[in-house]
C-alpha cells in the first residue's frame, strides 16, 4: 500500500487536530465518537470532592442520600487505549482505489490523532488463525512507526474482523476504544461479535467503507459477478431497473447497520473509497453513537 501521508498531508492532519481539539475536547482523550458522558465509560470508584473538581462529575444521588459531595472517577487507562481494526479481507480489495487502501489510510489518520491526543494505539489483525496486536505506540513521534505497522499488515481471510474482535474480547488486552473500518458485508458474524462490546469496556466505532462501484454499480448489460470472498459467480443482466433495485437493497443494508449500531451504542459512520481522507475524518470524528453518516 502506498501511504499518502506525506509532509503536506501531515500538515493537514495537524490542522485538523488543532480544530478538533478545540471543538471536540472531552473527558481524557479527545476521540469524539467514543461515548464521553461517563455512562458507557468504565467506572472505577467514588472519592471525596476536593476543590477544583468539575461539578459535572459530582454524584448528586450520593449527595442526596449522604449529604456529602462525592466525585465519580472513571478509568482513565481505558480511555487512553485505542485499538484500530482495519478489515483486510478479500472483499476489501474491491474498488479503485481498493477499499483496503482507503481503510489503512483512514486508520493511519485516526492513529495519528489518537497518538497526538495521548492514546496508546495498537492495531489488531489476524495472521493465520490467531489474532495479533502490534506493539502499543504512544506519543506523536510514534506515528511513523504506526504507519509502518499499517503498511505491513498481511491480507486476511474472510470474516477476519469478527475473528479479531472475538479474540480481542477473550484476550488479556486492556480495555480501550475500538475503531473498526470494514465494508460490513460479513454482517451476521459482525453483529454477533459486536453485540454488547461497548458495555464490556470497549467503546466502539464502526466505519462502514464501501467502494463507489458498490454504491453506484457502473456496469451495464450482461455481467458476470464474482464474489471476492467466496468466489461464487452469478451472470446477470444489469440495466436501470436492476441498478435501482440494487440501490434500494443497499439502502436497507446500511439501514440495518445503523439500527444495530444504535441499539448497541456503537458509533456508526459511512464512507467510500474515493472520498478524501480529511473529509471522512471530519465526518467520522463528529459522530455520535449510531450516527448514520451522510452518505448512507
Amino acid at each position, binding site marked *: 500500500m502506498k501511504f499518502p501521508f506525506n509532509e503536506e498531508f501531515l500538515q493537514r492532519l495537524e490542522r485538523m487536530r488543532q480544530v478538533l481539539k478545540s471543538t471536540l475536547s472531552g473527558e481524557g482523550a479527545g476521540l469524539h465518537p467514543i461515548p464521553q458522558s461517563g455512562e458507557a465509560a468504565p467506572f472505577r470508584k467514588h472519592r471525596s470532592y476536593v476543590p477544583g473538581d468539575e461539578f459535572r462529575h459530582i454524584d448528586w444521588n450520593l449527595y442526596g442520600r449522604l449529604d456529602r459531595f462525592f466525585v465519580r472517577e472513571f478509568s482513565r487507562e481505558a480511555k487512553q487505549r485505542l485499538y484500530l481494526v482495519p478489515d483486510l479481507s478479500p*472483499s*476489501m*480489495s*474491491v474498488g479503485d482505489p481498493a*477499499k483496503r487502501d482507503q481503510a489503512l489510510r483512514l486508520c493511519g489518520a485516526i492513529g495519528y490523532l489518537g497518538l497526538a491526543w495521548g492514546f496508546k494505539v495498537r492495531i489488531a489483525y489476524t495472521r493465520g488463525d490467531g489474532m495479533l496486536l502490534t506493539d502499543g505506540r504512544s506519543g506523536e513521534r510514534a506515528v511513523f512507526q504506526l504507519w509502518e505497522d499499517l503498511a505491513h499488515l498481511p491480507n486476511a481471510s474472510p470474516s477476519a474482523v469478527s475473528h479479531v474482535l472475538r479474540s480481542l474480547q477473550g484476550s488479556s488486552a486492556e480495555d480501550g476504544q475500538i475503531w473498526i473500518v470494514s*465494508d460490513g*458485508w460479513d454482517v451476521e458474524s459482525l453483529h454477533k461479535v459486536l453485540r454488547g462490546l461497548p458495555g464490556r469496556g470497549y467503546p466502539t466505532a464502526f466505519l462502514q467503507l*464501501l*467502494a463507489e462501484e*458498490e454504491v453506484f454499480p457502473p*456496469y*451495464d*448489460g*450482461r*455481467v*458476470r*459477478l*464474482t*464474489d*471476492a*470472498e*467466496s468466489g*461464487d459467480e*452469478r*451472470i*446477470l*443482466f444489469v*440495466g*436501470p*431497473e*436492476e441498478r435501482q*433495485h*440494487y440501490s434500494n*437493497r*443497499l439502502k436497507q*443494508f446500511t439501514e440495518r447497520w445503523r439500527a444495530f449500531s444504535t441499539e448497541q451504542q456503537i458509533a456508526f459512520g459511512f464512507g467510500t473509497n474515493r472520498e478524501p481522507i480529511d473529509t471522512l475524518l471530519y465526518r467520522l470524528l463528529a459522530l455520535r453513537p449510531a450516527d448514520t453518516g451522510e452518505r448512507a
Partner: protein
Amino acid sequence: MIWGAPELLYLLLLLPLVVMFSLWRLRPRPVTVGSLQLWQDFVERPAPIRRLQRPRFTLLVLLQVMALSALVLALAHPQPTRDVPEPLRWSIAIDVSDSMFLHGESGSRLEEAKTAAIKILDELPESDLVRLVIGSGVSREMSPGDARQELFARGARGESVVQPLALLRSLHDNRATFDRFIWMSDHEPRGDVEDIALILVGERLDNAAIVSVDDAGLAEGGKLGVCVVATAAVQRELLLERISGSGAVEVVSRFSLTIPERTPKWASVDVSRDLVGSPLRARLSPADRNPKDDAYPLVVSAVRPVPVEWVGDAHPELVAALQAAGLVDIRMVQGLSNTVNTVILGDDVDSVPSLQMRPVVVAGPDIVVEGLGQGRPVVVTAPLRWNDQHPWTSVVRDLDPPNLREVRPLTWNGPGDAVPLLTDAMGRELILAVEFPSGGSLVAFGFDTRWGIRTGTAWSSEPSYPIFWANWLRLAVGVADRDGQSLRISDRPPADAELLVGDSTSGLYRLEDGGYSAIVRPREMQELLQSGMRRPWSPDDGQSRKIVKRAQSTRMYWVVLAIGLLMATWWIEYRAEA
C-alpha cells in the same frame, strides 16, 4: 452502377468482423464485487429490459453493418451508368495511311496495330459490340468472338492510302454511334490528327479517358482514348502530354502489349524534351550501318525548337566519312509541324512512304540549317545538289532555296483579315509568315503538286492555330498565287461559292469574283479552342463538369448515408448509456 475503385469493395469482407465484434461485446463482462448478497435472486427476476436490449443490440449491429457498407461503397466511388448503355459499343479505328505500311523486320506498323487491337479485344466481354473502322470508313459490326484477324486483313487490304484526317473526321461525325473509341495510328506528326483526336476524346469523355504507354512504344486507350503506334517516343510523349496535360484524363489501366522494335533499318535517335533549346546531338556509329545497302540511315526526331548543329559542325567526321564513302548523296531537312522537326540523313527514303507524300526541302551535302524551328522560318542557304534517281525530287525541282530569304513577317488579326501573298524573287515561291497578336507565329511555305498547285510545308507556334490549319492556309495560298487571285481567310463557308478542296470545316472555296476563300476552322471548334485557351476536354467544360458532378453527388449520397447511420448508432448507444 460502375465503380471508380472496385478494389475497395474488398473492404466489405470486414463486415463479418463487425458482427463478430458485436457478438464479442455481448459476452458477460467480468466484475468482481465485495459480496453477492445484494444481487441475490436477480437472475430469477422477470427481465423486461433484456427483451428490449436484444432488439436494440440487433438494431445496433444492423446499423453498424449498413454504415460500414455505405462507407465502403462511397470509397469505391460509385458512378451512375444511365448514360453508358450496356453492352458497350466500341469503335476501333485503325489508321491505314501510308506510314502504317512501313515495314520493319517484325512487320508493318499496321500489323503491330492489329496485334494490339486483338489484344484489346480479347479483354472485352463477349456482349460488347465492336465496330472496326478501317481508313476510309469501311466498317462493320462484330463481336469479339468473330474472326478478327481476317477482318483486319480484309480491312487493311480494302484501303491502303487513306488520310487519318478523313478517318477521324468520319468518326467525329458519327461519334454518337459508339461508347468507347480507340484510335490506332502511328501518329505521324500532323497537328490536325491530334486536334481531332483530342476533340473526340473531349467530347466523349465519360468520367475518365484512359491513356497509357508501355515501354515498347505503344500508347493505348482503354475506356475511351487514343491508341498510338508511334514512330518515335518523343512524338508519342508529346501526344500523351497534350491529352493527359488537360487534367481531364486519368490513367486507370495499362495494357501490357509488347511490340518488337520497329524499323530496324532506320537507326532512330529520340531527343527528349530535356534537350529542347540545346544543340541536338545525333550519334551514328558503324553499327548503325545498314547491312542491306551498306548505308548509314539515320532518323533524328526532335521537338521544336532545337537548333540543328550537327551537320558539318558537331559531327564533321561523320559527314566526312559518309561523303568519302560515297554512301550519302542526299540530305533532307524537313520542318513538318509545330511539334516535331525531323532531320533525315540517308539515301533510302523511298522506304518511308510518308516521305513521299510530304513536302520536303532537299539540300546537298553542304547544307547549313540555321534556326530550325524557333518560331521563325527556316532559311536554307546552301546550294542544292539534286539526286534525280529519286522520284520525289521532282516535287521540289523548281525550288529556289536562296530566295526563301524573302520571308517577311506579317501581322494577321485572325479570320476575315486579308493576307497578302508573298512570292519569291522569281515570282513563284510562296511564303506566308504571320505573327499573331498573342506573339505566336505561323509560317507556311513550300510546294507540292498534289492538286496541281504548289504547296509546301508549314509550322505554327500559335496554340489556336496549330499546324492543321496552317497547312490549309499554305494550300490556299498556293492556289491563290497560282491563279494570281486574292485570298480571304474565314471561319465559315462563303455563300454561293464553289468548294475546290476539302470540306466546309477546312476547305478552299472559289468565289464568284474569281478570288478564293480558305476555311481554316469551323466556328464551333474555334470557340472551343479559343475559350480562355482551354482545351475542349477540360474538366471545366459543361459536359465534363456535369459528369463529374453527377459522380460526386452519387458518392456523396453514400457518404451522407454512412454518416447518418453512424450517428444513429451513436445516438442509440448514447441513449442507452443515459
